[in-house]
Each structure stands twice: as C-alpha cells, then as structure tokens.
C-alpha cells in the first residue's frame, strides 16, 4: 500500500521535476538568444561606464555628472568597483566580449591593461590626446601607442599639524630635508605628541606612499635594490623603531592613516591631495608642505589618478568607440576638465586649465608645484612596473617589520633586486 503510493508520487514528482528542468533550459536559451539580438544590432542605445569610485552611489553628484555625458539617444549605465578589482573585472569582460564602452582605470594599471590587449588605441577610438601635461599623460602611452587620457591627477604631500609643531618649537621651514624632518619628529615626540602617519600596507597603495622617499633618496625603479633604495627603507623602518610612526603603518591604508592624523595627536601625515579639502576643515591647523628629499629640496612624488580609456570591443567596435569618444570628450574636454577634476577632488591635467582651478581655491595653492614635478610610476618600466612594485612592497613590509634593524632592511632590498627580475 505504502509502496504503490510512494511510486505514484515519485512518478508525478519526477514528471514535474522534468518539466521544470525543460522550462528552465528553455528560459536559458531564450535569454541568450535575446541578448545576441541586441548586441548584433549596430545601433547601441546603452553606454556602459566603469569607474573605481564605489564611494559615490547612484544618487551622488558624480553619478549624475557622468550620466549627463551620455551621448544623445543613449542611456549611460555606470558600474563601480574598488580600484584593486577593476582591472580584473575588465580582463574577464574583454574575454567574454562584453567590455564596457568607457573605463576609468588607475594609472599604474594602464600599461598592464594595454600590453594584455584589453584596450583600444586612442587613435582607433578618436580620443583627443593633445593638451595634457607630459608627466601626467605619460602612463597612458605604452610602447609609443597612446591609449587614453588622464581624467585628472592627484599626488602626495606632507601634511603637518601646525598646533603641535608650534608647541614643540619646530619651524616648518626646516622641513626641506630628511634630517630636518627627523629632527622635527624627535622634537614633537619629546614634547609628548606622536610623530607621523603613512600607509605601509602591502600592495600598490603602500608602494605609492613609499615612492616619494624612494625617489627622494635618489633611487631608480630600474634598480629597486640600490643603496639609495635601502636608505629610503631604513628611514621608514627607523620611524617605526623609534616610535615616530605607529606600528599599524604596516597594515594601514591611506584612509586609515589619515584617520589617525585626524585624531589631532600626530604631527605629520603623508597623504594625498584628495584630502586637502578635509584638511582645511579640521579643528586643528593642518598645513601641507612638499615631501622633502634626502638632500635639500622637494622629493619627486608619484602621480595618482585615473585614465579614461576605451576597452577593446570584439563586436560593433565602431559604434562602441563612437560612443566612448563622446563620453571621454565630455569628461576631459576643455569645457569640462576642471569640473570633472573638481567633482573628484583632483587637479586638471592640462596646465592652463589647472592654473584657473588652483587660482579659484586657495587650498590648492601649495600643491601646484608638487603636481608639476610629479612622476608617472610606470614611465620608466611600463608593464614591468607591476613586478617591481610587488618586489618593493615585499621589501617595504620587511623593512617596517624590522623596526630599524639595518641588516634586515639591507637584506630585504637585496631580495627586491632578485624579485624584480622574476
């Protein structure tokens, strides 16, 4: 009795399950044929746009600003992902043939993206690449082919808490050499304050923050294990060892190290121009000064910021590129370049436009020379930069952990020479 009932139930259920399966498969196939139709038609009504600014949601000013750049007759669909993920997402999208029309990609990632065949040359797309400062536009050119243009630029500076410096009797005009900075750090820590915050986190972000010291010592990215490079590592290592910098610098990213500075207990912070506005709104008096080199004078700082690029399209490339050109022209054309840069807290990448931007707000004034002397991270090495950056990151981590131990720092940078080759 029970068995017959259960078999009958099994039959019914089996048929039902089978039917469900067939419908699912049918749904799948109808779905895919539907998308085939839309992509094979040459008229594109949707423009896809990727950026690495997840902090701006759909209701943000930035989102609305980008929407307004949609070519007539199209709607712009913006997707955002963290900087560290965007290149990987692009890789998959190009592989699958559904790359976005426009992507804003962090500048050190451009050479790798270009040499991996993810990007369309600017000349194919029709992007106007003229009029940008050479040092800021540099990362967009790989093996003599230009792929895109900077949407703006940022860089690093040394913020100091003037209240603390005054109390400790430090004259900011002495902050033009490493010795001057070290002497100031000693004074402020003796006076009961804390020293300096920076982001030493593993990966590109930590290397970005390390480069001003690296270049400021006279080191070259082609030789990441040089004596000068070791000196830069030793400088930061000593800060940890002497208690000038928090030990959490080994894991702090730039936001975390900025938060520490905002507590008002730290005298110095190495951080980006994108915090200039926030710095001007603190209870304490925060001032920016160029990062000192080892010898007298400002250290070269790395350029930050994204490039506007058109990824490689496998289908309907002409229609995609036409849309991409319009969106990119809208973002970085002469009329909008400053607006775009302002929306992101960046500097315009064209010198003349930047001067009007800097003139309009006095908080930008101290940054003007820093941005002009800034260097592209990938200018020397191209796509090979990624490998060197990884090697430097490892060496920096070891140096910070060594907390001043000169032998360990030396070994770490010797290892970097090897790592950079492999």
């Amino acid at each position: 009795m029970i068995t017959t009932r259960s078999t009958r139930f099994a039959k019914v259920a089996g048929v039902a399950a089978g039917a469900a399966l067939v419908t699912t498969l049918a749904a799948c196939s109808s779905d895919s044929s539907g998308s085939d139709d839309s992509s094979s038609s040459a008229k594109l009504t949707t423009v896809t746009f990727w950026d690495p600014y997840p902090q701006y949601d759909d209701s943000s000013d930035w989102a609305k600003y980008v929407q307004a750049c949609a070519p007539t007759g199209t709607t712009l669909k913006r997707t955002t992902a963290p900087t560290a993920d965007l290149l990987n997402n692009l890789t998959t999208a190009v592989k699958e043939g559904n790359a976005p029309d426009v992507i804003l990609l962090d500048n050190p990632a451009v050479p790798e993206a270009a040499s991996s065949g993810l990007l369309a040359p600017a000349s194919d797309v029709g992007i106007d690449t003229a009029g940008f400062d050479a040092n800021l536009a540099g990362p967009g050119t790989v093996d003599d082919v230009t792929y895109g243009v900077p949407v703006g630029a940022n860089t690093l500076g040394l913020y100091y808490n003037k209240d603390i410096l005054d109390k400790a009797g430090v004259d900011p005009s002495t902050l033009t050499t490493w010795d001057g900075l070290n002497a100031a750090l000693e004074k402020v820590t003796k006076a009961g304050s804390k020293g300096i915050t920076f982001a030493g986190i593993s990966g590109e972000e930590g290397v970005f923050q390390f480069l001003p010291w690296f270049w400021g010592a006279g080191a070259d990215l082609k030789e990441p294990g040089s004596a000068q490079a070791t000196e830069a590592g030793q400088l930061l290592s000593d800060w940890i060892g002497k208690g000038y910098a928090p030990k959490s610098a080994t894991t702090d990213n730039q936001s975390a190290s900025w938060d520490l500075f905002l507590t008002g207990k730290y005298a110095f912070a190495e951080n980006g121009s994108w915090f200039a506005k926030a710095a001007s709104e603190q209870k304490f008096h925060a001032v920016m000064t160029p990062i000192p080199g080892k010898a007298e004078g400002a250290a070269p700082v790395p350029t930050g910021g994204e490039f506007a690029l058109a990824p490689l399209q496998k289908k309907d490339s002409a229609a995609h590129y036409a849309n991409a050109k319009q969106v990119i022209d809208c973002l970085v054309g002469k009329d909008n370049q400053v607006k775009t840069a302002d929306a992101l807290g960046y500097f315009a990448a064209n010198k003349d436009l930047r001067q009007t931007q800097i003139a309009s707000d006095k908080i930008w004034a101290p940054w003007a020379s820093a941005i002009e002397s800034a260097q592209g991270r990938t200018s020397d090495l191209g796509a090979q930069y990624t490998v060197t950056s990884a090697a430097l990151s490892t060496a920096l981590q070891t140096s910070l952990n060594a907390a001043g131990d000169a032998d360990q720092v030396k070994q770490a940078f010797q290892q970097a020479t090897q790592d950079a080759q492999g």
Partner: protein
Amino acid sequence: MVRPVGIQTPAPAPSLGPALEGQRAELGDPPARRPRRTIRPSTWAGLAFVAPLVIYLAVFYAYPLYENVSMSLHRYTRATFVTGQAPYVGLDIYREIVASPLFWPIVRQTATFVIVSLVFQYAIGLGLAVFFRRGFRLSGLLRGLFLVPWLLPIIVSATTWQWMMDADSGILNRFLGVFGIDPVWWLNAEHSLWAVTIANIWLGIPFNLVILYSGLQNIPTDLYEAASLDGAGAWKQFWSITFPLLKPVSAITLLLGFVYTLKVVDIIWIMTTGTGTSQTLATWAYGMAFGKGTSAVIKYSQASAVGSILLLVALVMGFVYLFVQRRQED
C-alpha cells in the same frame, strides 16, 4: 546553513565537494541494487529526480573543478587569459610552486594555523557544550551570546580584532600591561600567524559548540544516572560516556572544521593581507589569483595549482573521515 568560519572565498578555493560527494556516493547505492527490469517507469522518474542534482553538480562542481585543474596545467598570463591561448605546460607549474622558497614555510604556517585552530576550537567548544548541557537558568541566553562571532560579518569581527591587536593603542596590549607584560606587536611579520590563529579560534568556537551541543542531546541521560549510581564522578563520566559516545559527531565536526579552516582567507586578509607568517596556502592562492597584496602580478596558473593542492588535501581528509566512520560502524 552550516556556514561559519569565513567561506566567502572566491575562485580557486576548494569546496566541500569532495566530502559531500563521498557521502552521496553511498546514498546513490540503493537504486542500483535492484535492476530487475531494464527501464521501468519508476526508473525514469528516478532519473528525472536525479537529473537536477546531476546537472547542478556538473555545472557548479565538476566544471569549475575541471577549469581549475586545466588552468594549473596551462601557463596563463593576463594576455593569454583574454585570448584563451595559454600554452600547455604539464606539471611545470606545480614543480615551480613546490620549488618556490615560499612554499614550504607557507605549508608549515598553514599546518600550524589549521591544527592549532582546530585543537582549541574543538576543546573550548566541547567544554562549553558540556557546561551548557546542565541547562541552568539563563543558559539559553548565554549560549545565544556565544553564537555572536558566528553571526557577525567577518569584515566587522576581523577589523575589530585588528584594532584590539593594535601594537600601540590596542586594548589587548593594555590588558597585558596590567599584568606588567610588555606590549606585543601582534600583527608584525613574526607574530601575525598567532594573531590570526587567535582570531580564528574565536570565530570557530560557536560552530563547534552548536554541533557538539546537539550531539550531547542524543546521549541518553540514564547512562549518566547509572554511572553516578556506580559512583563515577564528573571526570570519569566525561571520559567514559560523553567522549566515546560523541565520537561520530566529533569526527564530522573536526572534518568540517578542517576544511573550513584550510581555506580561510577573509579573516587573515582583513587583518594582515597575508603578510609575514600569516600567509597560508589559501591566502597565497587568493593573492596570486587576483594580483592582490604583495603578489601584485596576477598569476592565474600558480593560484590554480595551489588551489588544486588545497583541494587534494581536503579530499584526503574526506577519505580519512570515511575510513574512520566505517571503522566505527564495524
């Protein structure tokens, strides 16, 4: 439902697949035992029943597994990943991985992380389970509180641990200071393995507590009554009744715990990004697969190779479990 210790691991992470498939192989036996007629209607019904599962397994288990192994046998770079024309290199990548100066230290760290985590999670979980078995007043509430680590998003708990372990102003060092112990630099290269292990033990206790507690419910109370009439104390009762009768539950708890712990990425990544001694095979694979942390260069094939090694280890543990289970049944 059982989804405790950080398993939001992306791509190359091994899954519970092997263990579950092992069990399924057993469950799959009965229909095959009675092939009286060639194809009966009920056989068709049976096949229809099995079809969704088989398709599911094929699409979500077998195919990714195949892709993972295939990726580790071809030399993929970002460019060849896009074109799909990576050259076949046989086992070269496995050889390179094993020959890498990083490999054996990372294996040792992984072993330490997994074994120390498991021992403490299990011991503390069992202790708490036995403690809560008595069902005193508010025991339900307290037991609920012990589940908090399980319920909190890992990003929250890992960040909190990172703060607590801050070398300069963390509460943990301040607490140690009360006893005159020098502050520890928890998250530096040397100590980070212990830091993440401590955090992971804390995370895994609720899982052990819940499973072991439910296992305790199945031990008849009259055994304890009889034992106490015979004059067995609490300690004797534990070793002679609770522990032996809990063996099957303990075995599955430890197996699941092993697999989960082996592939933990999130808590380690959030606390240290896998720097120093806190690098395990799973974080190493994750860093290489996505070009993150100090592995800025994306290494698809190497990551797949490490993923396959992890999978193999989990598979071996699955067989060990089946072997232990069979011996217990005999």
